[in-house]
């Protein structure tokens, strides 16, 4: 044992012997006392006089942060950014978030525990520690408990340290050289480790590639390919009629398209046009009228459209007194339900489009029956 050695290890047979030796070795004040054991021994940090590890607090904080993150993210996705109603549950249903909150809590907490312990608290990577190349390391990873007296300055007396350790009950004593504090990638150890990992990846990748190529029967997982499923526009043996796509159940209503004007035309008379008479509404009404009504009812609504002659039926003359006296609701009812040979336009027109057409028809009627004061308004 030379005077330049960095630390002296004392090997103990049981954790109890180690714990009993700690106060004696610390009392010698020869250097820093450090312990190396195969597993965590409860109470050893108090015995060594170490400050309380902040890891527990870090894990708690990160765990709670994980829960909050998962909740916030799911809530934002499913209630704010892109609310989709699934399974008849309201958009921000916390019950559905819990499993993912649980997982993310565990993820954040374990990562904090593992990485925080290795990198923040134990200051890895640090591969040149002399204990790793000591004779005692095999015991440390198996069934021996080691106490180290480490040099604090140049005056460290390794022989005195060895004596103290022996006196405290160490069955073996070993002196170690100073640690290799060379930078990360120059360490042989790390280069060999990284090289080994790289080689293992290459070998495993090649092996997998050729195994699945030469032995295609050994498909690793086919469950997802072979599951019974329904594809759009494809036949399927699942349903009796052999179609993958099915009609919605009779009476199905699309969200936002509740049926309106379901009674008789007389009952619809009381419906009030909810739209204001603005330029935009009249523009919509005009567009819809041109697209869907004009061919039969005519550009001015007089029942003479381009199709009228060819078709043979007699479309309503919307300029007739009967229709000028109609309340808005009855016009609306006719658009929704159709009348005589006119089919229902409900499938093609949205609720606002239907009412906009009603407004436009009113405008057509008034234009054909203009009074003097209308002219004043128009020219003003």
């Amino acid at each position, binding site marked *: 044992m030379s005077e330049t050695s960095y630390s002296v290890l004392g090997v103990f047979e049981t*954790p*109890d012997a180690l714990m009993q030796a700690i106060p004696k070795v610390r009392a010698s004040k020869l250097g820093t006392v450090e312990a190396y054991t195969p597993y965590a*021994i*409860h*109470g050893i940090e108090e015995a060594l006089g170490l400050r309380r590890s902040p890891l*527990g607090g870090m894990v*708690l904080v990160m765990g709670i942060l994980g829960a909050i993150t998962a909740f916030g993210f799911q809530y934002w996705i499913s209630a704010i950014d892109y609310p989709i109603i699934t*399974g*008849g*549950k309201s958009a921000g249903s916390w*019950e*559905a978030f*819990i*499993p993912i909150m649980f997982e993310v809590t565990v993820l954040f907490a374990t990562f904090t525990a593992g990485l925080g312990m290795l990198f923040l608290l134990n200051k890895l990577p640090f591969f040149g520690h002399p204990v790793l190349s000591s004779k005692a390391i095999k015991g440390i990873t198996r069934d021996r408990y080691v106490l180290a007296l480490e040099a604090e300055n140049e005056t460290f007396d390794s022989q005195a340290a060895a004596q103290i350790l022996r006196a405290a009950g160490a069955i073996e004593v070993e002196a170690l050289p100073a640690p290799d504090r060379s930078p990360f990638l120059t360490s042989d150890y790390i280069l060999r480790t990284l090289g080994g990992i790289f080689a293992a990846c290459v070998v495993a990748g090649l092996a997998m590639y050729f195994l699945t190529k030469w032995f295609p029967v050994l498909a690793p997982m086919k469950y997802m390919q072979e599951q019974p499923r329904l594809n759009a526009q494809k036949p399927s043996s699942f349903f009796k009629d052999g179609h993958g796509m099915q009609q919605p159940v009779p009476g199905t209503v699309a969200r936002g398209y509740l049926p309106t004007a379901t009674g008789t035309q007389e009952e619809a008379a009381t419906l009030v046009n909810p739209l204001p008479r603005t330029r935009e509404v009249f523009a919509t009404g005009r567009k819809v009228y041109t697209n869907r009504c004009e061919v039969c009812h005519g550009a001015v609504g007089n029942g003479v459209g381009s199709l009228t002659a060819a078709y043979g039926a007699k479309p309503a003359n919307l300029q007739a007194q009967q229709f000028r006296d109609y309340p808005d609701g009855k016009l609306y009812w006719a658009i929704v339900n159709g009348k005589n040979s006119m089919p229902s336009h409900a499938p093609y027109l949205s609720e606002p489009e239907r009412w906009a057409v009603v407004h436009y028809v009113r405008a057509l009627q008034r234009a054909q029956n203009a009074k003097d004061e209308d002219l004043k308004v128009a020219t003003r």
Partner: protein
Amino acid sequence: MSQTKNTTNLLWGAVALGALGVLGSYAAAGHERFWANWILWFVLLFTLGLGSLFIVALEHLVSAKWSVPIRRIPERLATLLIPSVPIGLIALAALPVLYPGSRPEAAHHPLLAGKAFWLSLPFFSVRTIISLTLCLLGLWVLVGGSLKQDATKDPAFNFRARKFAPAFMAIFALVITLIAFDWLSGLTPEWYSDIFGVYVFAGAFLSGLAATALAVLHLQDEGRLEGVRGDHLYNLGGFLFAFTVFWSYIGFAQYMLMWYANLPDEVIWYKVRLASSWRLITLTLAGLHFVLPFFALVTRDSKKDPRRLRRVAYLMLGAHVLDVYWLIFPILGAPRLSWPELSFALFFLGGILLWIRGAMQKGEDMPVGDPFLREGLEFRL
């Protein structure tokens, strides 16, 4: 000694007073309420006893050494299974009153017709009798054998128990599932949940653990159980901590699946418990059975702090009572808590405490014949 005698007299007084209230409630409070209370205490007594026996069996199953010095405590608590037999047999009289499945109309009920035979009174009674008998068998082999070992010091018992423990685990799973399905979910036979037995198991194990921790701490106060240290308490605290989470996990898993599927026959059970004043009790249960003990035991030191552990153990026993109350009482409508419930609590709590006090005075405090006792005492975390 006189203090002990005073406590015993006090407990006998509580039992006598409680018994008066129990008889009174049978006469005045209606049969349904009487039997609901009776089943509440039968289930509590049974889960406490069986949960304790599970701790004993678990030790033998995995050959745990750390728990050998405190094994006598759950062994003594497991003897509560003996009084639970007559209590359970009397409870069979509640079948026509509270259990729709055991009434003859069940055969014509569209949802129950298929299960009518399973739920019928004779088969229900047979299952309960078999369950109780199996429990007594486990008690006889595991606890009786251990007591005998005190005198014989024969290590053969350890090998026998180790062989019997796996079989007992199968028995245990069967019995606790049967009791949970029959006595608790049988109250609303249209409702079913596959995981319900596991949910009740979590509660039973927790109540056994909490009672064990409390008894250990009390005996330590009296200067007994010398050699049981913070390391042993830490393990008990760790188990308590882990299984509060387990209970919540199972409880929430059951809720979430039913909430998601939203099937009328499943979700009604929760709808009742989330409506009106039951909603508050449900939330309280989640707070007392999970949130509070979780944060009380989350740090390392709190698990071996006797004061903290004692409070959490009391809390867990209370939460278990609330849990079983929450499982049973919604069938009566609004939550009930008045003199019948208090009389039942006096009667049964007094009786249970008297039984446990008696059991704690008998024989050795530790299994002195167990060859692993020394190793258990030397246990370090």
